[in-house]
């Protein structure tokens, strides 16, 4: 089967949070008690037991009109995923069929390297289980021909799951329909994300939305440069030492044949 992506269209989203609940239900996640901070948004951010959530935002557009913007936040399932690159145990991996990013908790050692590396700041570490949690695009469902739970629950068609090409086409059409300030988000970053947005406003308007997400340069320096270079340097030293030994020779004490006698005669 082909590469698939999940498409979120905020112009169709009513922020009913059916997806948020379906996610909790399918993944067997509990909810914690939170405080009312004057917004419907709850919980305030992603948590180890909240893989996805709807953001609520009051926005005053340049004309002075107040708009209520919604946004579904979850793992973006990058094609070039920094978390998979840094994961030391292979717990984070690409789904071979759909190219989404899966997470095997049996392998996770809780090193938190993915938490720092993720350009979208998605993975959350649970101090109790000492493991990291994030959306895996309902891998148990999609590999069995079902839609992700959030898509299944969506009553308005704001969420879709389908072949990449089809979804890109749908996104482009929606963007055109929605007009000048509308945009698509995700297709241009990190090799293309497998969760992308159609936004009715410019992405810069949405709070908490990364402007220019990319694999951090520090990850490239670390994994692509220093990692192989470490072994090269050690190998070079070993080879150099060997050559030194056979070409220059070790530094031996000068032979002193009288040494024994002198000391014996003390």
């Amino acid at each position, binding site marked *: 089967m082909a590469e698939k992506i999940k498409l979120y269209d905020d112009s169709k989203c009513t922020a009913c949070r059916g997806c948020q609940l379906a996610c909790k239900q399918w993944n067997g996640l509990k909810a914690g008690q939170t405080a009312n901070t004057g917004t419907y948004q709850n919980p305030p951010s992603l948590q180890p037991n909240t893989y996805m959530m709807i953001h609520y935002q009051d926005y005053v557009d340049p004309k002075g009109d107040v708009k209520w913007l919604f946004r579904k936040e979850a793992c973006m399932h990058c094609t070039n995923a920094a978390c998979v690159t840094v994961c030391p145990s292979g717990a984070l991996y690409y789904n071979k069929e759909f190219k989404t990013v899966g997470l095997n908790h049996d392998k996770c050692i809780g090193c938190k390297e993915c938490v*720092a590396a993720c350009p979208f700041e998605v993975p959350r570490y649970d101090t109790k289980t000492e493991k990291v949690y994030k959306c895996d695009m309902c891998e148990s469902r999609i590999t069995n021909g079902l839609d992700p739970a959030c898509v299944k629950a969506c009553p308005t068609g704001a969420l879709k799951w389908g072949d990449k090409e089809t979804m890109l086409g749908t996104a482009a059409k929606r963007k055109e329909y929605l007009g000048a300030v509308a945009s698509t988000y995700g297709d241009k970053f990190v090799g293309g994300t497998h969760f992308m947005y159609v936004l009715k406003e410019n992405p810069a308007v949405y709070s908490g939305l990364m402007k220019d997400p990319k694999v951090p340069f520090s990850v490239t320096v670390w994994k692509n440069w220093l990692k192989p270079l*470490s072994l090269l340097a050690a190998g070079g030293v070993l080879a150099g030492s060997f050559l030194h030994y056979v070409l220059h020779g070790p530094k031996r*004490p000068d032979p002193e044949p009288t040494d024994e006698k002198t000391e014996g005669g003390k």
Partner: protein
Amino acid sequence: MKKGMIKVTSGYERFVHWMLAISCLLLCYTGMGMMYDYLNFFGAVMGGLKGLKVVHNFTGVVFGVALLLAIQMWWKEAGVFVFPEDINWIMTAGGYLWHVDKVPETGKYNPGQKMFFLTVAAFGLLMFVTGFFMWFPGYFPLSTEMLRWLYPLHALGFLVIFAFFFVHLYLGTIGNPGTVQAMISGWVTRNWLKKQHPGWLKEMEHEGTLIVSDGEK
């Protein structure tokens, strides 16, 4: 003990050296088991990768303590360059790279050893500090960008320390025959001392601090 052997290290010095060395090697082993996916099998003896991580973290604490003791112990002797003799030694590369008729005499530690000590001290501290923050990232107000750079810095420290380890291993054993005894029994031959640290030998003889075995034990 053969008669005429000279004592060059104290028991405390050897203890700190080996505490630092063993913790460092264990850190290299556990760290490499996590860094290189094809070395993940290193975890087998510690119950998996999670075991590597736990051992790595706590060994890091031992390493940090050993490093502080080593710095405190060796700083005065190996942390400060002396002019001009150290420069003269460096100009001849200690006679290690090309033929030198007479290698300039230096004190207890030659500039090569001093450079090694300073590198281990600097990069060891770097490893300790970056490693500590990597262990507890959530407890400090580090920006995401700062947190991200801890990892390549930690990898840079590994690159330097791992490469230097092999230099140290070679020069401490077959590259300088007789040297390894300084860190095993603590006793070396006068002949060795005359070749490797002539300046120091004279210093000790002059000050009367030379400890020579009388061959009784």
